């Protein structure tokens, strides 16, 4: 998919995207391209909130933001009195669009079979009409990453080591061309674990194996991985030198070329401290740009992560710790601990159905010691920065893509409603399947 066709489609579909949006003020032929949100409290995340501010959206971008900003002629005005404006939330790990109903394999395209699939790309299998997308954006989430193979297993329970490439996209649009932010933002690596206890899907039983065997298997996997990366490095060098006829094409190695060149980060899923240390060592040796994902025990290796400048995408903080003797609030207090240690992190839902709990997760990190500012940034600016998209997302600044939410309160609080939602500068509906079912059955006559 070349860039030209993408931008051409942007123009074509941009014209009609608003019919996805609220019927109000939206005209299928000529959507207003200029909006002014006035008299709102604007939380830009670049400094102090503007108490009585105006935000101008023009041609999909934030055109101006501030206290004394003039409203351009012809702008659609949204009275923001009593309302608050924030950048849309950014969920950095989901299976949005690539998994519809978890239990039904026919609707799940998130994990390819086989252990090494660097060439598969999430964007290919994102279903734009997935019911998850409107449900999730109603929670104020405007862009996400779909991450393939991130569970470490395919649907049959087979091990996945390199899961494929994660894609970033807007939560609105008719086609992927419409929605796509960046087709490939990271390569997924499930760091191999020394597993003595496994679940055998073939017999549906738990299996135990001796530690020595598990370790041997682990080492075999790491060797395989090392070998693959070495081959990719040689392959990348070959592409750089001779002509195409000088070497045999290999799609998997080709997909890894940007990774070994350090252009595409490796999103490494690991939870235990030992695994994280081993993964860091591996990425360092291989000269890969590493982003840690999961990181349940990141706090144990915080100094290592800080000193190497490795950012973390934490899983949901609303979860219990793995170890029985861990403090009960270990997962809740970890973000504050990482923040204090100077480790850069974002929070992800690692899910589809629970993506709408993203704000709730951030709030719970805040109630356990993280500053409000850092908590909000962990679901807006930091994911954008970690995946190299901060020039477009994460704050309300002139020139950035207008993914903006207008709320009646703190976007992380449980009872807050998103009143207006803009994606690529278009007023986009928060209507969804669940709201429609509610209204339908609310009006069901008495039997």
């Amino acid at each position, binding site marked *: 998919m070349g860039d030209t066709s993408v931008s051409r489609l942007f123009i074509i579909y941009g014209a009609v995207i608003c019919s996805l949006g609220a019927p109000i003020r939206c005209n299928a032929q000529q959507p207003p391209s200029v909006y002014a949100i006035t008299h709102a409290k604007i939380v830009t995340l670049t400094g102090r909130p503007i108490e009585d501010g105006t935000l101008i959206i023009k041609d999909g971008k934030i055109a101006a933001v501030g206290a004394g900003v003039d409203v351009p002629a012809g702008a659609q005005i949204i009275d923001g009195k009593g309302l608050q404006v924030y950048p849309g939330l950014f969920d950095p790990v989901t299976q949005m669009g690539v998994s519809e*109903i978890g239990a039904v394999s026919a609707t799940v395209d998130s994990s390819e079979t086989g252990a090494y699939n660097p060439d598969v790309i999430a964007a290919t299998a994102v279903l734009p009409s997935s019911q998850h997308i409107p449900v999730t954006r109603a929670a104020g989430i405007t862009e996400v990453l779909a991450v393939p193979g991130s569970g470490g297993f395919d649907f049959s329970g087979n091990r996945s080591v390199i899961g494929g490439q994660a894609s970033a996209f807007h939560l609105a649009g008719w086609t992927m061309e419409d929605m796509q932010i960046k087709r490939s933002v990271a390569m997924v690596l499930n760091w191999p674990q020394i597993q*003595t*206890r496994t679940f055998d899907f073939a017999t549906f039983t738990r299996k135990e194996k*001796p530690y020595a065997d598990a370790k041997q298997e682990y080492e075999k996997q790491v060797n395989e991985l090392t070998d693959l990366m070495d081959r990719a490095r040689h392959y990348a060098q070959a592409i750089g030198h001779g002509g195409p006829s000088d070497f045999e094409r290999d799609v998997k190695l080709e997909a890894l070329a940007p990774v070994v060149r350090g252009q595409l980060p490796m999103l490494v899923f690991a939870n*235990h401290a030992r695994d994280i240390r081993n993964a860091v060592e591996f990425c360092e040796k291989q000269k890969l740009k590493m982003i840690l994902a999961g990181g349940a025990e990141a706090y144990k290796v915080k100094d290592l992560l800080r000193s190497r400048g490795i950012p973390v995408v934490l899983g949901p903080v609303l979860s219990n710790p*793995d170890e029985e*003797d861990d403090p009960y609030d270990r997962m809740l207090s970890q973000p504050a601990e990482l923040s204090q240690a100077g480790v850069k992190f974002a929070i992800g839902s690692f899910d589809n159905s629970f993506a709408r*709990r993203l704000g709730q997760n951030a709030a719970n990190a*805040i*109630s356990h010691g993280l500053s409000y500012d850092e908590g909000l940034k962990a679901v807006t600016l930091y994911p954008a920065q970690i995946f190299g998209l901060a020039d477009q997302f994460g704050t309300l600044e002139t020139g950035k893509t207008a993914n903006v939410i207008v709320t009646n309160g703190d976007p992380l609080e449980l009872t807050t409603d998103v009143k207006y939602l803009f994606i690529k500068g278009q007023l986009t509906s928060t209507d969804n399947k669940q709201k429609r079912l509610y209204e339908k059955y609310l009006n069901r006559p008495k039997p």
Partner: protein
Amino acid sequence: MNIRCAIVYATLFATLLASTLSRATPPPLDANPVILIQNATILTVSHGTMENGSILIKDGKIAEVGPSIKAPAGARVIDAAGQFVMPGIIDCHSHIAIEGGVNEGSVSVSSIANIAEVLDSEDVDIYRDLAGGVTTANILHGSANAIGGQTIVIKLRWGQPASKLPFEGAVPGIKFALGENPKRSNFSIPGQPKRYPATRMGVEETIRGAFTEARDYKNSWEAYRKRVSAGEKNVLPPRRDLRLEPLVEVLDGKRYVHAHCYREDEILMLLRVAKEFGFKVRTLQHVLEGYKVADEIAAAGVGASTFSDWWAYKVEAYDAIPYNTALLTKRGVVVSVNSDDAAEATHLNQEAAKAMKFGGLTHDEALKLVTINPAMQLGIEKRVGSIDVGKDADLVIYNHDPLSAYAVAQKTIVDGRVLFDRDKDIADRAALEKEKQDLLAKEKKAEAKKPDEKKPDTSKKPENKPEVKPDDKPKPPSNAVKRDSGEDTTASRTGGAQ
């Protein structure tokens, strides 16, 4: 992990657990502390909110609730200025405190199994859920069977033995399950034939079949008793059937039916079957499509215990809506929000709050979803579920309005005893960590020493020493492994039994 290592681990774990226990060990049972909570915002649930109120706790009960209560001599005073007190949270669907598996999946009617026999009072999830404000939980089997096992209501009396966990006088229950799980849609065991039932039709017939048997069984016992009381001699009693006895209790209204269900059709199916056999369904569990048949559920007088916002994990959850709670409430159904999961239980207050956003329940109505409503569903509303004089002193103190994502439980009180205290928990951590490290060091030392322990023979008999050949040297520990955490990582988190 080899066996030796496993044993070391088990011992270590037991020791660590013992130390965890010490963190929350309540005062001895004979000591009934008098506690006065002062200056709190009291969310009574039964009669509104009281600002700057006090609660006096005596003999494990709420002795007094009022604007200002004088502290009796010797009372422990808890200053809750700026804090909120609410009744302890009641989780109507929990799988904590269960030793071993939660499903007896071999048969479609497993009413012979009883959760009361496998209560595990040392499950750390009891403590974690307490720390999330839960004081009472309905402990259920999984959903592998159309008619599942016998269930029990417990109080989270952390630190006490399993025999002390059951909620005295609470009516025991039985788990039913409809839909995808009992018909085993989402998994099959290779090499094994499909178990009956495999359809929703078969689920109905499994239940009808069992209750037909139970009705006959009940009649045969009644006939027997009649003949005996009429003075007939030498009457042989019917053969006892432990599988049918719980179902007879259901027919007699002595055992509550908690039925796992999702789809509108299966909900109505169960209500029809219950009517046919003359028993009542106490609660519909999950009941994610309950909103589609809210009037029918209300008319049947059946409670609904649901999730706040779970959906799409399987087909029967695809039409789930977070408005379910509010819509059912508005149609007159007693609704509770449950966890089905130990971690979810730690924030049920937050899950209840979502019904204000989705469907516009009031603050009071939302609070009821995790307090008096589940109490009513479990038939324990005279004891717990609201802050009223005479009720059990089961309370949670939060630092904020508990219906906020920023609320953190500070203290949880069960039967008038503070079983969770956040400040104390945090203060004790350094000592616990030290204890753990000391134990690990001790273990390491013991392992390092082990080879030497074989030596005494030789050291006692120095004359043998020269005979020791190099190959006889004790081998170094084969498992010189790092054990910072998890070589025994499980493949997946427990997905509950939803």
